[in-house]
Structures are given as C-alpha cells and as structure tokens.
C-alpha cells in the first residue's frame, strides 16, 4: 500500500537537513520577531492578559514546532519506500535528525513560555 519502492537518490538527502531547516527558520523567526516587536511597541497592545508581542512569539514558536513535527509523517511514508544501498542508514538517520530537530525547536524557544518579553 505504500506505493512502489525505489532506489534512494541524492535528492533524498534533503531529508537529512529538512527538520533542522525548520528549526533554523523557527529560531530566526522567534529571535527576529522579538527584536522587531520590542522596537515597534507590540508590548503595549494585546488581549486576554497576553501582550501582542507574546502572542506573536508563541505563534511562531508553536507554529514551527508543529511544522517540524508534521515533517515526520511524510518522511516515514517516503522513507519506507527507499531501497538499495544506503537506504537503511539514510532512513534511520533522517528520522533521528527530524525528531532531534523537533525537540530542539521546542527546547530553544521554550523561554517565550515563561520569561518577560522586552527587558
């Protein structure tokens, strides 16, 4: 049911970096938005006890974490079809790296959950 097997190719190597690319995007987004938000005064606005600044940061943080986690499913499906030399190692490694990237995204952005924003 998983479709046809095929030989693993050079282009499949993007799966080794996809997860952490999302991490990098998330990290830059959170860091950049924080700088812009504090400069632009998003601190003042907001609702439900959360400043606009924190809402934006939370959105970027959780969004990228979810995106990173979402990569896992197509990866597992696609990687299951790889065959030939290297297929096993690349599959294993890609899955580990992708999971590590999700954990990293959750970890490095976690301070937005409990620290003050613009100090």
């Amino acid at each position, binding site marked *: 049911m998983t479709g046809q097997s095929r030989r693993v190719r050079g282009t499949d190597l993007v799966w080794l970096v996809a997860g952490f690319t999302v991490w990098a995007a998330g990290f830059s987004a*959170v860091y950049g938005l924080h700088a812009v938000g504090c*400069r632009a005064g998003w601190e003042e606005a907001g609702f439900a006890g959360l400043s606009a600044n924190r809402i934006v940061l939370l959105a970027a943080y959780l969004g990228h974490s979810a995106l990173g986690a979402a990569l896992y499913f197509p990866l597992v499906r696609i990687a299951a079809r790889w065959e030939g030399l290297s297929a096993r190692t690349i599959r*294993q*490694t890609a899955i580990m790296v992708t999971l590590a990237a999700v954990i990293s995204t959750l970890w490095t952005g976690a301070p937005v959950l409990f620290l*003050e924003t613009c100090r």
Partner: protein
Amino acid sequence: MTPTTPVGLHRALDAIWRAPRGIAALSAVNHSVVGRRFIITAFIYFAIGGVLAMLIRAQLARPENPFLGADAYNQIFTMHGTVMMFLFAIPLIEGVALYLLPKILGARDLAYPRLSAFGYWCYLFGGTIILVAMVMGVAPDSGWFMYTPLASSTYTPGINADVWLLGITFVEISAVCAAVEIVVTVLKVRTAGMALSRMPLMAWYLLVTAAMMLIAFPPLILGSVLLEMERAFNWPFFDPERGGAPLLWQHLFWLFGHPEVYIIFLPAAGAVSTLIPVFARTRIVGYAWIVAAIIALAFLSFGLWVHHMFATGIPHLSLAFFSAASMLVAVPTAVQVFAWIATLMRGRPQMSLPMLYLMGFFSVFILGGLTGVMLALVPFNWQAHDTHFVVAHLHYVLIGGFVFPMLAATYYWLPLMTGRLPVFSVSKAAFWLIFLGFHGTFLIMHFTGLMGMPRRIFTYESGLGWDLPNLISSIGGFVMAAGFALFVIDIVLQTRFGRRFRRNPWGGTGLDWAMPTPAPSYNFASLPLVTGRDPLEDNVRLGADIAAGKGYLAGAPRGEMETLCVDMATGEPEHVLLLPKNDYTPFWMAAGLAVFFTAFLLSAYWVAPLGLVIATAFGWRWLWSLGAKSDPALIDAGQGLRLPVHFAVPSVPTLLGLKYFLAANAAFYGSLLFGFLFLWTTAAGWPPQFLNASPVLIAGIAISLAAAAIFATLARRSNSREANGARMIWLAGSLAASLAGLGLLMGLAIMDAPPPDTHAYAAITMAIIGYVILHTLLGVMFAAYTLARCRAGFVSSLRSTDMRGTAIWQLYTAITGIGGLALIILAPGGLA
C-alpha cells in the same frame, strides 16, 4: 602495450602523476602535494603562534612585569589568536581533509585539484601579508575579534587593522574553496560501491564540516569587507554617530565565530571516531547516531553566537534563546562521547601511542565542554565573560578538542606519508609534558579569571590574588612548549629514522591502508569495488588486488589522469572524472589577488584593480581549459564497465560545485540583508532619507535581470534540442539584457542613491546595489564566455556545462538582484 604487473602499473601511473620538481613545483595541483603543503605551513604557523603564546606567558608571569609594553602586548595577543585560529587551525583541517579524502574514499584525487592549489596560494600569500606586518611591527592589535569602533579608523588609524581585514579575507578565500572542494568530493568522487552508508565516518564529518564552512565564512568575509569599506572610504556601517551600529560587527563576527569552533572540532572528532575502533579492534558503535549527531551539531552551532554577546545589553529573552541553544549543543556532543565509550567497552583497546593522545583529548575536552555549559548560563556568563576563565575554557576546547586529536591523527597517519613508524619513547615523554604542562597552564586559569583577572591585559598589580596563579600558568606554559618541541623532534626523528614497515601498521580497515606506503602519487593503481564499511576486513588481500590492477580504471592506458564519479547515495559508478595536469594558472590567479590585496592595503587604490584584471584573466583561462571540442567516446573502465566522461553528462561535478559556491554566496548576501534589517530595527534615526529612485528605473532593472535569466534558460533549452542557431540568439539576448541591467544599475548608483559616506543607510543600500552590479557584470562575462565557447565548438547537447552554468548564474543574479531592490524599496515604510 598496457602493463599488467603491479610494477608496470606503478611505473605507468607514476609517470603521469609524479609531483613536479624545482620551479615547476609551483604548478603542482595533486591533492597529496597540496594537502601536505597546507599541513606543513599550518604547523609552521602553530610554532609561530606558540612562540607568541610564550611571550604572553612570560609577560604575565609576574605582576607589573616590564618585559613588554602595552602596544607590543596588544599586537602579540591579537596575533596569537589570529594566527592560531585562521592560519593554524582552519588550514590544518583543510590540509588534512584534502590529503586524506581521496585516500579514504578510494579516489585518485579531489574533484577540483586546481581549486585546492589556488586555495593554498591564497592561504600562503594572505598569511605572508600578516606575518610581514608583524615583523614590521604593524600587526593587528585590536584583538582577534576586532570589535568596532575600536578597530575603526578613528581609534586604530594605522595600517594594523587593514592587515587583519585584508589578510584574513584573502586567507578565507581558501577556506571557501576548500569547502566547495570537500563537499563535492565526498558526494561524488568515491570509488565503486562506496555508498553513503559505507563511507568512513571521517568522510561524513568532513562533509558536514565543509557544508558548515560554506555558510559560516561568508558572514565574516562580509563583515571584513564592510569594515574595510568603512576604514578606506568612510562608509559608516558601524559608526553610531551616522546611523551605524557597533553591534552589527559583533553579530557578523560571531555568526561566523561560533560555528568556527565546531568547524575546528568536527574533523578532529572525525579522527577520534576513526582511531578509536581501530585501536579497540572493533567497529564503531552507533554509526547512524553519530551521523545524526553531527548534522544536529552543525545546525545548532549556528544558533549560539549571541552567547559571546551576553553582556552587550541585548534583551534578556533573546539571551535566553541562545542560552538554551548553547546548552542543547552539549547533547549531540554527548552522543559522540558515549558512542566512543561504548566502542572502547566492546573492544580490547590498547594504549598505543595515538590512543595515549586520545586519552589526553578525553580528559581535556570533557572539562572544556563542562565549562562551556557553565558559560552558557547567562548569570554566570556575566561574571566570567572577558576574564581568564574564558581564556581557560577556550583553550580546553581548542587544545583538547582539536590539538590533542590532531596529534593523535599525526601519529596515526604520518606512517602513510613517510612509510615509517614512531620512535616510541620520545613521543611518550612529549605527551606527558604537553598534558601536564597544559593542565598546569590552564586549570588554575579558571580560578584566576574568577578572581577577577580580565583577559587582554598586559600588566596587573600585585595583591589581587593573581600573582601565584599566573606564575603557575607561566611555568605550565613553558613545560607545554617543551613538550611541543619534543613532539617536533620526534616527528623529525620518525621521518628520518623511523622503523620501516610494509603495509597497514595499525590494522586499520579503511582504504587508506590498502595502498603501499609511503602512499604513491596516484593513490590506487586501480579503484576497488567496496562491499562494506571495512573494505580491508572484507578482503584482506585488497591491497594486493588493487596494486595488481584488479579494479576499475587500472593503470593509465589512455595517458589520462582518471578517477570515478559515483551516484551520491548508492555509490554506483556514473562517469569518469578526467583530472587536470599540473598547471600554473592557480598560482598566477592567486598572485593577481595578492597584487589586489597588497595594493589595497597600501592604499594604492588605482593599482588594486590591476590585480583583479590579472586574476580574472587567469580565471577565464582556467574555465577555457575545461571540456573538449568534440563529444568523447565512452571509456572502458574495466570489469566490463563502460562509462561516459564527466563533461559529457548533465551531473558534471563542475555544476555541483557552482551550486555550492552559490550557496556560500547566498549566505554572504543573506548576511548583508541581515545587516540592513538589523540596522533598521536597532540604529537610531533610521532611515534618514529614502532612496529616491524612479519607479521606471527600478522596473527597468528588474525586467533586464529577469530577461537575462529567462534568455539564458531558453539558450540552454535550445542547446539541448541542438537548435544551434537559436541558442546563439538567446545567449546574445541574455548578454544584451545583462548589459542593459548593468547600465541601469550604474545609473541608480550614481544618480539616485544617497552618497554612501553620509549615513549607514546610504552605505548599506549602496553595498546591496554594488553586490547586484558585481553579479550582473559577471553575468555579462559568463554570457560572453559561453558565446565564445559555442563559437569555438566546446558546447554541444552533451557538453552543456557552460550553458547550464550561465543559466544558473543569471537566475541567481535575477533572484538576488530583484529581491535586494525590493527590500530596499519596501523596507523604509515599515517601522516608525
């Protein structure tokens, strides 16, 4: 008659591969020669850096020491850091990579031998500029990270800082070249059957390291270019009085500087991962885990740079992200350490000489890692930052994580180069002196730092509790120096009088030990078919088989220098890479750049372009020498395999290299745009005035650049359809569009853009425009070049490299050009 005996094969191959002697040595491009040159030059710089370190320690041995004055001391510590990082550590890695890669991958040379030769000359010339400046007493003196505004012309008016900026940039060209070289070589230039999963871990480490270098060095090069522009032409990127920001320099520097430590560490860790299983007589535990760990490490290391800036007043939440990331990076490092320990556990390790040095590595590096975690903790960093605690930490990491493994690696691989084994007792004594001297110097230095001793001070008063620790450090330093001296003696002894051996003295299982020693100039008489991760274990007679020509591309029946290119993932042979003969072009091209950099340094701004012209002319010649005027026949690679020649397939390594070069280029441009955005969010009074460009002009530029890209693509398509008339027309169209774009861009720069020395906004806007102008100009040259190549008969539907390359270049120029202009035009409206 094609020879078939091992001796006959050796003679035939050596005749065309042998390194040239005498003055012709300047034309050598072979990876063993170039790698060896890198390694030896790097060790010479290590000695120089070491002497500087001894001067530092002599000065700090006692309070209020009259030995050195502030000026001399500032030059000495700056040069020590600079030499060690840029002229020793990075080039040593490059040298080791260039020397080893083909040997462990089963190839005869690297993907672009001339590129690494070019890199070597850049390194040598750039390093020489810096060294000469030091001898003349005008060495850089603002610290190895050259903070602005101290390094700006107001506070460092002399030539000192320019020496750093220009010399280091020159040297970094070689790093970028080496990075492209390594990535392409690992991905493509391997022997048959060497699937990714069968590669020695060292190749993975070098692949990841080189990929990091592609992204990490450009921010530094950009920073240096901007600062040099500020110093030479008064463009105020970092001047707070004219809208610049001193912190921009720090961001650019550390965006390079942190990954740099991992760039230095990873290849050394690769050596550890290679040596441990060999000496434990077993296989490495957790191969896939290690690969995953180094990929994670590579990425995470780009998210740490602000930990060097915890005390700059950045909002605390931002510090927190970087603090968290800095701690996290310990995890992939722990994965490797635990994998190494498990490997030791599973085997029967012996305390042979390289292993002894690895024990030094473990004890020093683990402690360095632990103090690194401490420094990642924001409040603790506020106390420890800029003190001798940090000096201690960085030496634990650099000497532990780099020097010790490299010494181990030297003992391990030197026999491959020399064919001789160590004289054991001297090397052991050297180890103990280095090891004890090291801890003597740096262990107590943590304490000295927490007792309040800042780094980079040339003198201190007595009575602060610093006297005794400093004296201990100095004594330790001299013990360590004695150890290194003994190491050098030992190496010389070993090369001259070491015990000879035949093959594989350590029982290694990789291809590097499947060749006779000292390693022959061509590495392998024939390229083996690899069937597992440990080829020498799978077939103990592999070495003899290779020498007897029982592999691919045996000997040199066509009189060409040949090696295999394989499918990236599976290692199936794809085509034959024909390698270049010895060539002076790289030397002259680097010499042209040397003229440029030296003239710029001496403010001879009218001579400088001459150097660029020379370099460009040789670059043109270089490109012109690629390919052939007729479609080549398939090559009989032996074992019933017939393969095309590299320049007659679409997946030619040249284009892969171009793409990786453009990745580095994009990192450079991305850093520039980051600079724009950074100033926009942080600098005061920004922007002062907008770019008053007419919409027509901007639209004209955008359309020209887009047209140049589209036409070049159409030319490529016509070429592959063999529509030879159409391809010329489209190419000419691309050329014309680039020319038009160039003219319009010049108009924008001269007429509409505000003068760049008035304000940082004007300066960085002009820098972006300048970048686009440069790429459009090169686009003109590429289009013209390809036209000429078509006319000369170098291009066909099979031999399409020039066509594809030009199309890729024009596309890159269009995207970056239009993107940059859009940013300039749209940005100022945003924030108040």
